[in-house]
């Protein structure tokens, strides 16, 4: 059975909340019912049928033909199935996602993977600020699953990350891994200033180094870490090149000593 396809008619006149358009909510619905789903974020009512041409198909495999930075909360709370966005996505893509796979063939806005608990998010372009981070008032960010960004990520990537893994194949902005509670962030390119800022626990791999390192990280020397072989095996299906990078000695920087100091940055030895 072919995919359920939403083809964007035109750039939306307002920001849209696409949270209702997830596989578990669309299963069994008719084209007419789907077209009536409201997506507006202002007082002006906008339904799915107004914004998209809908080609009914398997609700377990949803495709958005055409993207926009105004398409917010794509894949919000999805539990299974697949969503593919052929274009950009707005804020909070994969917010509270619990399972399945969301692919954004473009750039994603801020707070992608915020509160994510499971599943896979792949962003082929760049991710905005606070990837995996919590919204205001929340005590923790991403809590599970895996996020792969083929491009760059913005500031405070993995802010308050609690569990799960975020892979950035490009560069990361300032304060990567800030306030991390646990989990793993791997950055292949260079990270901005003060990576690991106030991280309590967790692992931050900076394969390309960082701009300015905080003096509150303690140098524990260069070592071979057997556990990195496990991490490499785990990420190999998602990022083969980065998996190979992991299998080498790393300088372990323990910190942030400004808080508990039980976290770590793996830094290039040289």
């Amino acid at each position: 059975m072919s995919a359920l396809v939403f083809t964007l008619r035109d750039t939306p006149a307002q920001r849209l909340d696409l949270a209702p358009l997830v596989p578990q909510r669309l299963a069994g619905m008719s084209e007419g019912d789907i077209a009536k789903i409201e997506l507006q974020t202002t007082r002006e009512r906008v339904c799915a049928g107004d914004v998209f041409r809908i080609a009914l198909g398997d609700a377990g495999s949803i495709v958005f033909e055409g993207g926009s930075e105004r398409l917010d909360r794509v894949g919000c709370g999805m539990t299974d199935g697949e969503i593919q966005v052929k274009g950009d996505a707005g804020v909070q893509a994969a917010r509270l996602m619990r399972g399945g796979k969301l692919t954004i063939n473009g750039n994603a806005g801020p707070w992608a993977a915020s509160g994510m608990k499971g599943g896979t998010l792949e962003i082929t372009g760049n991710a905005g600020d606070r990837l995996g981070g919590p919204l205001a008032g929340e005590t923790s960010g991403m809590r599970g699953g895996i996020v792969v960004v083929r491009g760059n990520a913005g500031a405070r990537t993995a802010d308050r990350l609690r569990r799960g893994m975020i892979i950035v194949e490009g560069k990361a902005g300032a304060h990567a891994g800030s306030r991390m509670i646990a989990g793993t962030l791997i950055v292949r390119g260079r990270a901005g200033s003060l990576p690991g800022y106030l991280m309590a626990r967790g692992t931050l791999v900076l394969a390309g180094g960082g701009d300015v390192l905080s003096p509150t990280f303690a140098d524990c020397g260069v070592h071979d870490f057997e556990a990195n072989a496990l991490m490499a095996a785990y990420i190999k299906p998602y990022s083969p090149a980065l998996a190979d990078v992991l299998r080498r000695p790393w300088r372990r920087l323990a910190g942030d000593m400004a808080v508990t100091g039980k976290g770590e940055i793996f830094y290039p030895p040289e």
Partner: protein
Amino acid sequence: MQHVTVNGIRVDDTFAEAFGMRATALTITAHSEAWARQAALTMTGFGTSVIGCGAETSIDRMLSSDETPDGRPGVRVLLFAVSTAELQKQLQNRVGQCVLTSPGSACFAGLEGEETLKLGNALRFFGDGWQISKRFGDKRYWRVPVMDGEFVCEATTGLTKKAVGGGNLILMGASTQTTLAAAEAAVAAINAVPDAIMPFPGGIARSGSKVGSKYKGASASTNDAYCPTLKGVGNTALDADIASVLEIVIDGLTTEAVANAMRAGLAAALALGPERGALRVGAGNYGGKLGPHHYHLKDLLP
């Protein structure tokens, strides 16, 4: 004893009687095969019989580096006990004292199971607060800082309640040398069977036991019916031409594994022939009333 003769060797019309056990499996890795084996040998030492050792344990097989989670050479170890609580205790003590201490070692689950035993979840406290938990997908590992780096250990390992302990073959020959040759051939064949171990030294027990003793406090004593030096005085089970008896005890994760192991061992002993190997093959049982698993030799013939 009624018997059939195969390749000149008498095979008793009898059966091995075995018992249900709790079991688990581990994958132990290290920088080299030699050090992985060393850790496994140390852990499985003093693990011949639940009568005195608390657990029956041995190496199942060596693992190549592409079969292990961390891509290093490894060993698969099986561990059997009579209860889940005893198995947990033996697992924790043996891995903690023998694998954690071995240079460069790491320890992973060797069995998937709906029920689990604590592995790293118990040993992590050695880290004194410096231990680090990492979860990759559905697997959780502990990194415990030690003096040569880090001891990496999976959080849990699987438990099976369908394991079987006490499958056996009794090899009877004209001399110590020929009987030992038959036993060694059987052990070599059984070593190739997955999910089964022979916990006694080199896979062979020379002091098979019976239940009970004339002495108070001894739960088991020598199997006098199979002692060749008592042939003239006791209630012997041996024929006039038998001068040496060795037993192979088999534990398996499943009843099929035990049957396969006995089948392989029996075939190897019979293939050796009566001149170079055993004259007679039997099996140990308790009349069939104690153990739920019965392995009839006639059903296992090649």
